[in-house]
Structure formats: structure tokens, C-alpha cells
């Protein structure tokens, strides 16, 4: 037994020696390494990380650990919140008022100086089909949803400054809740209408030299002669592209705000909100020009979108090149009446333009 144990104890001794050498080497490394001194160990024990460095880290939006399951709850400070508040309350909100107020002011000035643009010559009484049933339905679908979104959106941005004061708590409570509800649900419906409209009228809306000349003459404001125009004039094409580009931006950012799912962060929402607010206010300001021209600004313009038919005189005055193409299609009002009830959705003009 003893014989067998002796080699064993020797092996143990040798192992211990090796271990001692390793430990010493390890200690030597620890002692001479610059980062693992006794001071560092003490600092590790004291630990607690506070002071300016801590505050700097926290206010940079560092994410820590938390048992809370709420979205972004690991972040102590939402760094961009204050910037969003600043941009929204000090730039977008007053900016929108300047844009819309400026637009309204300009249109009032135009109306007071020029008044309603009447037809130069008496009406011939013969009508030309300008907008088919589908075009008109689409126009009014987009118009009504647009106006609903504009009014509810303006209420969401500006309502609190005067509605509770003048109309009381109960009206305000219901109005703002309805505004948010309508705005959030009609938004996607509007976007479908907008997309259909953009596609349907895409072909008619490319600018050409006629439109450049139209713009140079200010759409008839500069000089005495009314500038030439095709089925759509430069102004109408401009409105189409404003609505297409700005409208798509508004729809895109609006859908982000509408669907706070898919792990969207506060940051994404802030960005979407700023884009949505700024661009939609600009769009509302521009839309006032379109509404003005289409209603009190110009005689006969609304008829086209209401009944689908325009008077020959109106067509000749405002869209002379288009009139030259379609003047043989002019019909009597009685005929138009029967057509309207039936399948009058044959806008030769619109189809022609689409082919072009």
C-alpha cells in the first residue's frame, strides 16, 4: 500500500509546484498590468456610478435594464421629445397659420380687386361634356374626405386655443374625440381615393409649352388676352402635381401615425408627425386656391364638376385648344338631361387625353 502511495504523493507534489508557479505568474501579471491594481479593485467595490458621467450617459438616451415591459421603458430620458415639442409648437403650428392666413389673405385681395371672372361673351346654351360620372364621383369623394381631414386636423392642432373657451367643455370634449376618430379612420379612405385619382388623371397632367405660356401670362391675369389651354390648363396641372407629391407624403406619414404597431418608436412618431403636420398645412393652404377658382373665383367652373357639362362659351374662353377638338360634340341642354340619367360617362375628352 505504502509503495503504491509514494509515487502518488510525488505526483501531487509536482502538481502543486506547477500550480504554485502558475499562481505566481498570474499574480505577477496582475501586479504589473496597468489596469488591475488594488485601486481598481477598491473602485469596483465602491462602484456606484454617479456624477457628471452618469448624467451625461442618461441624458444621451442610454438604454438600461428594467423589469417593465412597456415600450422603450429601458430608456430613462427621451432625448428628442423636447426638440419635437419645440418644432411642433414654435414652427409647425404658427407656420401653418401663416400659410393658411397668407393664402386666405391673398385670395381675398384677388377677389376684391378682380372679383369673379365672368364669361366674356354670352352663353351659347350648348353644352360640352367635360367630366364623366366616374371623374366627378372621384373628385367629390376626394374633396369631401380631404375637407373632413383638413377640418379635423386643424381642430386637432388649433382647436384647443379657442373652442373650449367659446363653446364649453362638453362640446369640446365630443368634438375633439370625433375629430381624432374621423381623422384616423377617414385618412386611409382618402388615400385610396387619392391614389385612384392620381392614376386616373396621370396622363392629362404633363406640362408642355402651352402651359409654360399659360404661366407666363399668369393664367390670364397678365395682359388682356386669355392664354391658350388644352383640356387642363397650367394651373390645374400644377394643382395635380402638388396634390400628388404633397398628398402622397401626407398619406405616407399619416399611415405611420395611424398604425403605431410594428414596433414604431417615439422617434419615428415624432418625425412622422412633423412631416405630416407641415406638409398637410401647406396642402390645405394651396387647396384654398383651387377651391376659390372652382367656386366664387370663376364663373362656370363649378358647373363642370357638378353636372359634368360646361357651356361652349366657357370652354372656348378657358380651354380654347380643347374646345377646338370637341366643339362638334356640343349638345342641347335637353339632351344633356337625358344623358345624365343614363350612361353619360362617355367623356370623349378624358379618353382622348388618356390615350395621349
Amino acid at each position, binding site marked *: 500500500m505504502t509503495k503504491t502511495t509514494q509515487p502518488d504523493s510525488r505526483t501531487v507534489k509536482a502538481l502543486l509546484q506547477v500550480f504554485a508557479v502558475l499562481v505566481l505568474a498570474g499574480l505577477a501579471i496582475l501586479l504589473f498590468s496597468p489596469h488591475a491594481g488594488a485601486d481598481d479593485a477598491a*473602485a*469596483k467595490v*465602491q*462602484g*456606484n*456610478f*454617479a*456624477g*457628471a*458621467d*452618469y*448624467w451625461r*450617459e*442618461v441624458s444621451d438616451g*442610454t438604454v*438600461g*435594464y*428594467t*423589469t*417593465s*415591459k*412597456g*415600450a*422603450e*421603458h*429601458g*430608456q*430613462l*430620458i*427621451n432625448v428628442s*421629445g*423636447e426638440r*419635437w*415639442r419645440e418644432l*411642433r*409648437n414654435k414652427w409647425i403650428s404658427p407656420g401653418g397659420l401663416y400659410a393658411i392666413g397668407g393664402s386666405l389673405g391673398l385670395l381675398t385681395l384677388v377677389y376684391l380687386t378682380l372679383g369673379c371672372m365672368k364669361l366674356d361673351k354670352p352663353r351659347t346654351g350648348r353644352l360640352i361634356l367635360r367630366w364623366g360620372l366616374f371623374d366627378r364621383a372621384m373628385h367629390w369623394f376626394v374633396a369631401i374626405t380631404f375637407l373632413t381631414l383638413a377640418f379635423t386636423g386643424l381642430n*386637432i*392642432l388649433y*382647436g*384647443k386655443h379657442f373652442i*373650449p373657451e367659446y363653446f364649453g367643455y362638453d362640446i*369640446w*370634449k365630443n368634438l*375633439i*374625440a370625433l375629430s*381624432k376618430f374621423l381623422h*384616423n*379612420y377617414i385618412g*386611409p379612405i382618402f388615400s385610396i381615393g387619392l391614389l385612384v385619382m392620381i392614376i386616373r388623371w396621370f396622363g392629362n397632367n404633363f406640362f408642355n409649352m402651352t402651359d409654360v405660356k399659360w404661366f407666363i401670362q399668369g393664367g390670364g391675369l397678365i395682359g388682356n388676352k386669355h392664354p391658350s389651354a388644352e383640356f387642363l390648363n397650367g394651373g390645374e396641372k400644377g394643382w395635380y402635381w402638388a396634390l400628388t407629391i404633397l398628398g402622397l407624403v401626407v398619406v405616407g406619414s399619416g399611415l405611420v*401615425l*395611424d*398604425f*403605431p*404597431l410594428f414596433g414604431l418608436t*417615439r422617434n419615428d*412618431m*415624432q418625425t412622422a*408627425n412633423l412631416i405630416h403636420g407641415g406638409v398637410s398645412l401647406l396642402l390645405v393652404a394651396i387647396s384654398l386656391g383651387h377651391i376659390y377658382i372652382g367656386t366664387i373665383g370663376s364663373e362656370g367652373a363649378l358647373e363642370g364638376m357638378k353636372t359634368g357639362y360646361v357651356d361652349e362659351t366657357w370652354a372656348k374662353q378657358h380651354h380654347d385648344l380643347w374646345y377646338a377638338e370637341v366643339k362638334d360634340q356640343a349638345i342641347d341642354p335637353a339632351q344633356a338631361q337625358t344623358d345624365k340619367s343614363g350612361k353619360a360617362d362617355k367623356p370623349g375628352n378624358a379618353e382622348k387625353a388618356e390615350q395621349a
Partner: protein
Amino acid sequence: MAKMKFLCDSERCIECNGCVTACKNANETEWGIQRRRVVTIDDGEPNETSISVACMHCTDAPCMAVCPTDCFYQTDDGIVLHDKDLCIGCGYCLFACPFGAPQFPSEGAFGERGKMDKCTFCAGGPEEDPAKQKAKYGANRIAEGKLPLCAEMCSTKALLAGDAQKVSDIFRERVVYRGHKDGAWSSVDEQKAAPGKQGPEALVPGQMDSQQMAALASELAVDASNIIAKA
């Protein structure tokens, strides 16, 4: 008039989440709503530091500034409360809040988030009927002359709640005992007592007599009312 504020002493917070539990229990908030949370920076690292955070009842509250319904209001005590009848759940307060305090019961399509819920400093909300108030906004301990339960139940007294002046007085006392001239935002490392130096830096925490501490306390005294007024 008192200005109510929370203060969390990061040197004391041990991440026990007692405040979170106390809050949940006092206010019986909806499933998924957690008004208070504890965040630990550098978890598991040598510098691990925890802080309990909820609505800080800002004097210039961003939520109030951006709310489209104007449902927020400040009580005379500086507590920021909101009217859930007016709230439309748009989420703007959450976008603006620096502390992630506003909570929403759901996050659905078409921006359906439900009515916002947040810390009320245990001061309830705008509802006359006490039962309805309790159900809608949680406890109204302030009306009973009590402070928020989270701070009351904090085991290390890291979380302080109450009048800003009182809270800062308590905190200043701690600063004196610990010898931290910058309060919660200073590290032990920087504050080692330096022999041969004059003033508070010459004093070693735990080795001062009461006179020395009183002298140091008055030297470090800050009138919080000026700070509050400035804010």
C-alpha cells in the same frame, strides 16, 4: 405654496422594485399599465446604478404643451394631472415626455390607444365621486394628507416625494453626512477627503462632530424656492 417633486437618490436605490409594486397596489392600474419603473444602467457591471422613474410633475410640462385636447392641468401643489374624459389617446404626451411617463392600455390600428394613464403623485384626478375617482385615476392619498405610496414604501428611502424644499433639505442632510458636495450626481471617488484642504473637503464623512456637520450643512444649503421660481 408647496411644490411637489420626486427625487430618487441613485446612491441608495437597490432596484428592489418595491416602489413599482406599491404604486401598482395603491392605484390598482389596468393590466399592462405600470406607472413607475426602475431602470438600471450598466446592469451587472461595476458601475451598476438604478433609478426609479415615473412622471416627474414638471413645472414646464411638455405633455401639457403638446396635448391637442388640453386635458392636462397643474394643481396648486404643482402636481400634473389629466382629465381622462377629454383624453383622446393620440399619444402626443408620450412623444414629448422626457421620462416615458404616459402609458396607454392598448396600441391598436388607427391610433386606438385608449385613455392615457400616468402617475398622479397619488393625487387622484378630476372626478367628484371618490369611488369613480379611484377606479379612473387610482388613489388620492394627497387628499388624505399622505404622500405617494411608492416613496412611503421605499425600503432604503432612495425615493423621496413631497414639497421640493423639504425633499431638498432631506437630501442636503444626506449630502453632508456622506460628504458629497454635488449630491446624488457626485461619485464617491471624486469626493475623497483631502487632508490639508480647507472647507468642506477637509471634513471626512462619518468623522465630523455635530457642530462641523451643522456648519457644513449651512454652507451647502440651497434655497430651492429660487430654483423652482426660475423653472
